[in-house]
């Protein structure tokens, strides 16, 4: 149980996918302009991370490893995740239109998001069990959510700030992102000390 909590917390804070591992930067910069779209995107990411781990983990364990095809991991995972997200979108559109509406635009966007692929591959690399892999995906999604929501707050402040002309737009956004990421470095070592490892 302690291990699961450690995995969850370190996925959220220490190995935050956006701010520490620098995966999924595209939506982080692209969709974080408004809080509601940032939330929608992050919820879609959490959702997709969970289901893609649930599908790719067994594929790797029971299909790729027995046939010594581990080197096909990346391409198979991309293929499966892309098809899966498409399927989920069709199902949502039919049966849960309200959820489809709120996730709608973001679902296809994250089909091949590197954060999603990163979670599935790192789950395998870390040698997690299935349960641990799911917890790690949840934590990673939550970490993404946290980073998105925090950064959309930072950006709304930036909108009202008097920024020099040469820094307007993307430059100041990137600087703000780097400072936000720097602040997350402060979490390093916290979890180890918390659980006396």
């Amino acid at each position, binding site marked *: 149980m302690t291990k699961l909590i450690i995995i969850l917390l370190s996925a959220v804070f220490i190995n935050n996918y956006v701010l520490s591992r620098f995966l999924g930067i595209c939506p982080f910069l692209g969709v974080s302009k408004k809080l509601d779209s940032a939330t929608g995107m992050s919820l879609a990411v959490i959702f997709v991370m969970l289901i893609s781990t649930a599908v790719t983990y067994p594929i790797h364990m029971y*299909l790729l490893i027995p*046939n010594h*095809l581990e*080197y*096909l991991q990346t*391409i*198979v995972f991309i*293929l*499966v995740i*892309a*098809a899966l997200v*498409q*399927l989920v979108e*069709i*199902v949502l*559109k*039919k*049966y849960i239109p309200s959820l489809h509406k709120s996730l709608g635009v973001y679902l296809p966007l994250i089909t091949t998001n590197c954060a999603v692929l990163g979670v599935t591959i790192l789950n395998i690399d870390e040698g997690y069990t299935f349960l641990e892999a799911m917890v790690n995906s949840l934590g990673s999604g939550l970490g993404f959510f946290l980073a998105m929501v925090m950064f959309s707050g930072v950006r709304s402040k930036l909108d*009202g700030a*008097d920024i020099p002309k040469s820094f307007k737009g993307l430059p100041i956004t990137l600087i703000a992102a780097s400072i936000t990421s720097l602040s997350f470095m402060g979490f390093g070592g916290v979890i180890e000390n918390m659980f006396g490892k």
Partner: protein
Amino acid sequence: MQAILTAVIPVVIIGILCAAMLVVASKLMAVKEDERFPKVRECLPGANCGACGYAGCDGYAKALVDDSSVPANLCVPGGEGVARELSDALGVEFAEVEAKAAVVHCLGDCDATEDAVDYKGMESCAAAKMIFGGKGKCGYGCIGLGDCAEACPQDAIYISKGIAMVYPPECIGCGICVRTCPNSLISLHKTTSTTVVSCSNRDKGAATRKACSNGCIGCKKCEKACQFDAIKVKNNLAEIDYEKCTSCGECVKVCTTGCIKIYKLSE
């Protein structure tokens, strides 16, 4: 050769399986798109101004197609022409578009009120609002730095004597300024004769009086004068129920501070 085959075959099989699954799913769970949608969307001007109350022209077109109770005359900027095209495309009866124009609910110009602080920050109401709720004595009133004037696509708003004014003939009633104003002072009104409470101050009478000589002090004289029960003082501010108001002008006559006015926005 063997190595290549063992790699290619599983990937191909997975690919075919996924494709088959998607094809079956999309056939089984197809959601019908209304074929009227592109036609309806074509009629709309595409300014995405949001005057209709939906998120852009796409949103309104979707609402029109999905729900037959959505009226086809909500596109104010498009006016009568668009409404007629829409009702043709949808096969519903044509209804007049009620032209609307923006009105600023504040009369706190530099004769009536003054600045409480010497504001030297950004030339933006939203920025000034963040610092102690604006620069003027009245925290509810027009800040006068022209966010609305900048947002207006028609240049129909100008700043005069420290407050925003609308030049009605230019106003297309898109409502962008309504959403821009950080103090929510602007609202849309029908362009025929309309009675407007030109104050948004919800402080008690004495406090309002101190801040601005044109403010509504909540004396309720208008409430008593109204024969139609259309004007009510809520939170120290007169509010008009436009369902009941006939613009008879009785409240305008009795108003102690002169903050109720009748506008004929079409002129």
